[in-house]
């Protein structure tokens, strides 16, 4: 086991630049259980979420996230019953590389959602899954503790509405919150370091 771990971490030792020294070339990822507050039904939904972020330079990162819902509403009431989403985004990390790393981002997404509704005979039915375009914006902060892990917190606002075969559209406006322990590895060693104000490039 020790041999496996040390072998897996060997490339990290070779690419010794820490993420709090140069973010460019790093990959950050996390997997988590997370809540989301659905405004239309005033309910705290539960999700399994996974997210990855690649730093293309010290300030900018391209990100992707998946949210799979497993509880979205109380039993036997109308409203969203499933709300799976896929987000892509660009995040801007506005402080120069350091252990403390706040960021903001634009994260448009596509959702697959279905909802429960009462039909003409007052019977509770579920709609079919329907794709929905989503507006998304996020803000968060990382704190790099070790050279391969960090703590993070992220809040994401989402707006959209599901139509499908529902008699009336249902809004899926939501505040998604995620926090916990994330992982970071160096995917490549940048040829040039980004230059910050009052700093000169070393290589």
């Amino acid at each position, binding site marked *: 086991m020790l041999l496996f771990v040390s072998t897996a971490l060997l490339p990290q030792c070779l690419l010794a630049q820490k993420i709090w020294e140069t973010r460019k070339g790093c990959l950050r990822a996390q997997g988590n259980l997370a809540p989301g507050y659905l405004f239309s039904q005033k309910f705290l939904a539960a999700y399994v979420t996974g997210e990855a972020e690649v730093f293309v330079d010290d300030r900018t990162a391209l990100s992707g996230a998946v949210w799979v819902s497993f509880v979205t509403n109380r039993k036997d009431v109308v409203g969203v019953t499933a709300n799976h989403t896929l987000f892509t985004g660009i995040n801007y990390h506005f402080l120069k590389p350091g252990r403390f790393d706040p960021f903001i981002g634009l994260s448009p997404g596509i959702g697959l959602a279905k909802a429960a509704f009462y039909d003409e005979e007052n019977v509770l039915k579920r709609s079919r899954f329907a794709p929905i375009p989503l507006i998304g914006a996020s803000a968060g902060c990382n704190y790099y503790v070790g050279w391969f892990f960090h703590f993070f917190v992220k809040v994401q606002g989402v707006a959209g509405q599901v139509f499908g*075969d529902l008699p009336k559209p249902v809004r899926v406006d939501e505040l998604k919150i995620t926090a916990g322990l994330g992982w970071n590895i160096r995917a490549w060693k940048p040829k040039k370091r980004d230059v910050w104000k009052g700093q000169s490039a070393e290589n």
Partner: protein
Amino acid sequence: METTKQLLTLSFLLLCYVGLQAQSTNVEKAKPEKEALRYQGGNFSLGLRNTISSFSHGNPKGVGIGVGGHARLQLLDRLNTEWYADFISNDIQGKAHRTDIHVGWSVMFYVLNPKKFTRKFTPFVVAGHCFDQSIMKINGRNGAKASRFSSAVQAGIGCSYNITPRFDISLTTQYMFHLGEELDAHENSEGVMTIHTHKHAGWEGHLLISLSANYKIVKLWKRKT
């Protein structure tokens, strides 16, 4: 004697030609210093965007939400092209909905020289064309449905905020005119919604407001100096 004269004349003409060639080469070499407008050509960037579709087909309350992405390929310092795809859904009075899928391209002209995107705000005018698949459906499991494929043109204005020379946030407002037949939802006096198709309906369209984040991934070509 005659031959010598001819040879001298020929040599003189040849020297004149070589001299002129050298001069014109110097002029050509000097030109690019003045014309600093092609250095950003070849920038390829990827962007993600959210779009708000409002005033849809004359209905000011029908605000739609859209998601999309685009690639930008810059041709000159002030001229960029955008190749995009959008997926927009619109509510129609809570009784029907409309889905638009746009695939198209635009040309962007920067009103001010972006100065290699070191200028913070770079306003631009934009115009282009797209193909559009519109699907309109009355809400409900057995609601009527109609679709049409058409072409559209769009034009507008926008502004990029360059956070870094490679990364920008752009806000664009465009009006899109659909050129094909029109899909329309009508509500009768009993509150029942029906879908109608109007051929040769003329201009109909919607206002699109997009917020995008863009990153210049690579420079595809460099200008020869």
